[in-house]
């Protein structure tokens, strides 16, 4: 109980600080427009009334936390989840393409790492390209991928998830190369004294040794996948998903909608990273790791 409290209190303290700073920022950023409104309406509200007005504009420059919270609550819990206005619906659309892309990306990353570890030629030839691939701005490449695939008749979740794959294979590949190379020399010598084959060394030594690296890089990869899925929805005129929600809201200056879509995205990201972390901990527990 006290341990849970020890964990929660620091997080809440930071949250309270952030919310306070957010309110101050909202008042300051919304004040010029509010003063403009008041001047035109020839009103001279008192300080308290003025602050109240800055925090309740319908399309504020900076929405106040309670406005975002109310909007988020309404669009998450009070809408039918099949409705186009439901955040759950949009989050699900983005989540499904995130998960598909993440699965592809992890698979691709692991395959690349296995290749790199076993063939020096791949190490030399592939690694520079992998690094170079990540320097290309994803915003530039995303529309092209979608358009090219649409031209050959592939539309929907596959091209979208490919953007996620593109972002998520990299951390997995780099992490797994490190992980598969992590066994100590002594352990490799030991396998050599048993005259173990390359595949025995791989399955009995390299793979188990790489597990902590795999899960650490999968945590990064799953967050990158979500970013990829959202980015893929932005320039392509997608009609559903957190990215399209962000875009629509920005067209109509619905800043509160934008912020609550952002909150939804963050919650999905947090859930995904936590989930990968949990699975990682379960796996390491089942492999006999000393409980932390």
């Amino acid at each position, binding site marked *: 109980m006290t341990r849970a409290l020890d964990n929660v209190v620091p997080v809440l303290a930071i949250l309270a600080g952030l919310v306070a700073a957010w309110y101050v920022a909202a008042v300051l950023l919304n004040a010029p427009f509010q003063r403009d409104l008041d001047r035109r309406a020839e009103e001279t509200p008192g300080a308290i009334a003025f602050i109240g007005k800055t925090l309740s504009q319908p399309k504020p420059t900076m929405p106040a936390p309670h406005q975002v919270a109310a909007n988020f609550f309404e669009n998450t819990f009070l809408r039918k989840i099949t409705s186009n206005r439901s955040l759950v619906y949009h989050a699900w659309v983005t989540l499904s393409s995130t998960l598909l892309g993440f699965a592809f990306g992890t698979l691709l990353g692991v395959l690349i790492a296995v290749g790199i570890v076993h063939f020096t030629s791949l190490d030399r030839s592939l690694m520079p390209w992998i690094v170079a691939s990540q320097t290309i701005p994803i915003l530039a490449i995303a529309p092209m991928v979608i358009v090219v695939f649409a031209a050959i008749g592939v539309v929907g979740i596959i091209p979208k998830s490919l953007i996620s794959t593109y972002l998520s294979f990299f951390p997995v590949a780099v992490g797994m190369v490190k992980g598969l190379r992590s066994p100590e020399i002594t352990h490799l*010598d030991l*396998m*050599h*004294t048993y*005259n*173990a084959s390359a595949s025995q060394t791989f399955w009995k030594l390299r793979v188990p040794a790489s597990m902590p690296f795999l899960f650490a890089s999968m945590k990064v990869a799953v967050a990158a996948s979500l970013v990829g899925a959202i980015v893929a929805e932005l320039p392509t005129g997608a009609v559903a998903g957190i990215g399209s929600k962000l875009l629509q809201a920005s067209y109509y200056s619905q800043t509160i909608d934008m912020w609550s879509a952002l909150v939804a995205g963050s919650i999905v990201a947090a859930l995904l990273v936590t989930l990968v972390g949990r699975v990682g901990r379960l796996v390491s527990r089942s492999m006999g*790791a000393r409980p932390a």
Partner: protein
Amino acid sequence: MTVGEATVAEKTTVVEAKGLGLTFQTNDGPVQALTGVDLTIGKGEFVSFIGPSGCGKTTFLRVIADLEKPTEGSISVNGMSTEQARESRAYGYVFQAAALFPWRTIARNAALPLEIMGVSAEEQARRIARVMDLVNLTGFENKYPWQLSGGMQQRASIARALAFDADLLLMDEPFGALDEIVRDHLNKQLLELWARTNKTICFVTHSIPEAVYLSTRIVVMSPRPGRVTDVIESTLPKERPLHIRESPEFLAIAHRVRDGLHAGHSYED
């Protein structure tokens, strides 16, 4: 001494090195790790290799194990090349660190070589029960390495080396990182194990008492270049209680080892 030599000659040869040398090519030029090593180890012997660091004692062990290739001379293990010997799983190797896989229990660690060699599950269970008993680890089969003390971990790694019943045991300073009390205990257990299994043991150490207490033969080595400077036959009986280490006979052998180390090593530099 004549008695000792006669018994060695009668025994089957396990390791035979002739004019063995190994030169490492490093960035600072060639380093002679071993040169001109002539040595024959017979079946059932307990041979210790002692010398200061850099004398090539570990390198020699690694050459026997086919973890290093010699650059001069020849070496055979059980009458085969070292590579053939390794491929036929002629030896078990115990490293300085226990080198257990942290994700395997003690029993599964000991089973690792058996899994690799394709031994059936029942046979694995039978052999593991036997080696766990040999190293006094019965009851700890399902513990993970981190749950065991350093001495127990090292015993588990010995169990792993014994599991596939190779006749030759190569041990590279296995007790070097342990405190003296644990080391005494393990030395005694190792002698008992050797007596029970009649294996040939090559044992690298830098402790004179350990070498004298354990061995039937002590190979004294010296560095720059790594070479054998003296080979001492032990006159101690096979039955060795710990207090034998205070006997005049023991001290005489220890003295000769120390002299050998001094003669071969210029301590001025």
